[in-house]
């Protein structure tokens, strides 16, 4: 009897997970039995054990506690994980949508006009490889607002993949389809909407997927710098608290949210893709 590939893969994933968690759990030494403490231990308040990487069981218990009440707000240093994620998502979405609003029209322009492509290419080539966080000091100085600066960093990092993919997709639209538009006397705007946009949409969406991935990577780092709120700030804050359980929990949560963002765009991409 052979199970479908999907089921077999699922079983194997489960085994890998159980093995990893099991080994991790076993490798974790239980705190030494309460006995005579050395002078050092007494000085450290028996904290050395507490500071070790926590076992999965603790993390799961912590995750359960956090996720069962994700939106509590007990002052600036104690907010629910849902609120922190919410702040991060809000920044990412604002920066990302602003980037799309700029990148897609400019990408169209570059893709449709060889002149604009050549004229703008040097700027893109120089600006693209700059680490988004390198913009942070300049953003903070010019914008004078840490919140807006974080959004600007998201904007600047998510603009390039969308811009380049849009230009690439638009420039690569099959000549035949353009000819169909021409023989049907479609104007520039209607050609762009009726023919070029749907033809280039899968490529544009690929750029958008890459961008959301990068934006989610960058927001964590940006929030560590600007502080205050957000999942990046949360990770750093828990590190300062030496609460590794929370750190590991939030790392995993960052991964899950990133995956969900990618899945959402993958779904949109499926909607606009076409078989030729």
């Amino acid at each position, binding site marked *: 009897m052979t199970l479908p590939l999907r089921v077999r893969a699922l079983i194997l994933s489960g085994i890998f997970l159980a093995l990893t968690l099991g080994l991790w759990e076993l490798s974790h030494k239980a705190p030494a039995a309460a006995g005579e403490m050395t002078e050092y231990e007494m000085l450290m308040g028996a904290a050395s054990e507490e500071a070790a990487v926590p076992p999965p069981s603790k993390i799961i218990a912590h995750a359960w506690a956090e996720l069962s009440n994700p939106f509590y707000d007990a002052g600036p240093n104690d907010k629910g994980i849902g609120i922190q994620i919410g702040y991060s998502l809000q920044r990412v979405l604002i920066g990302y949508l602003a980037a799309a609003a700029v990148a897609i029209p400019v990408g169209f322009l570059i893709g449709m006009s060889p002149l604009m492509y050549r004229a703008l290419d040097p700027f893109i080539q120089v600006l693209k490889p700059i680490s988004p966080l390198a913009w942070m000091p300049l953003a903070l100085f010019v914008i004078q607002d840490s919140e807006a600066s974080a959004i600007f960093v998201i904007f600047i990092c998510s603009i390039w993949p969308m811009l380049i993919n849009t230009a690439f997709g638009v420039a690569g639209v099959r000549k*035949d*389809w353009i*000819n*169909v538009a*021409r*023989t*049907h*006397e*479609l104007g520039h705007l209607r050609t762009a909407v*009726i*023919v070029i946009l*749907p*033809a280039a*949409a899968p490529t544009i969406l690929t750029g958008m997927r890459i961008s959301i991935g990068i934006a989610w990577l960058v927001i964590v780092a940006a929030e560590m710098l600007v502080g205050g709120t957000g999942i990046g700030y949360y990770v750093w804050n828990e590190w300062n608290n030496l609460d590794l359980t929370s750190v590991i929990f939030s790392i995993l949560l960052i991964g899950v949210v990133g995956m969900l963002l990618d899945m959402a765009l993958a779904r949109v991409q499926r909607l*606009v893709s*076409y*078989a*030729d």
Partner: protein
Amino acid sequence: MTRPFLEVQGLGKTYPSPQGPPLTVFRDVNLHIQKGEFVCIIGHSGCGKSTILNVLAGLDTATTGAVIMDGQEVAGPSLDRGVVFQNYSLLPWLSALKNVTFAVKARWPRWSRDKVAEHSYKYLEMVGLTGGAEHRKPHQLSGGMRQRVSIARAFAIQPKLLLLDEPFGALDALTRGVIQEELLRVWSGTNQTVFMITHDVDEAILLADRILLMTNGPEARVAEAVSIDIPRPRQRTSIIHDPNYYAIRNHLVEFLATRSKELAGTANPDGDDATPQVVQFPTQGFPRPVTPAAATKAPIGAPTSSAKG
């Protein structure tokens, strides 16, 4: 004589080449096409027939000469000239129906949605694409079905001139035969002028009123215009019994096999401004009245040549 519907005057295409002299693909192409005429053009690859079609469509420009349709010079593409390309050129993200409706909407922007749909359905019905198939995307259709959609789209916009660029080249022989007859059926109900490229001699005889023969490139020209006077309606099965069928076929094959090469690079003996030599095959037993000079000389069933300036 009234002015022909479509006039091609001294058309030529030359590509500059970085090394050596510029390359002239074809030159001195002079054609007259009447309203409602079905004209096929045959020639070897590289003789520039696709370029000629693209110039007629307004998608390409010629180096010399001009195309005048209905008294107006062709400059740029227009809904007056519909094009069917070999690779169908359907928009793959639209259903068959939408591939037609977008064209109909472009042609008649003021029509209501219902009228556009009704008109599009009418033409899809003509090519036998209804009953659910019209809602499929091109990749869900066979090659033959796709080309039917393409033909429906071209006829639906009712262009003054229909340009077919080897429309059946990518289809298997059986499908090709079926669609050829469908094309004939759809065409015969209209007064549609058609200019079509083909590589298939039998297809050309079946469809055309006139077959233009091109010499090999470079410096290709249209050497002959063979009139096909086989009565219509024509059918694949019966046309081969026409007394002139094999005479015409042999003439075409012989031209393509040998004379297209021999005539390559030569000038039109009647002068560069002249239209191609007319070749006619008078109906056996009932010689068709042609130009008086040709009629007296023509042996029955044999090609007669007459220069028409």
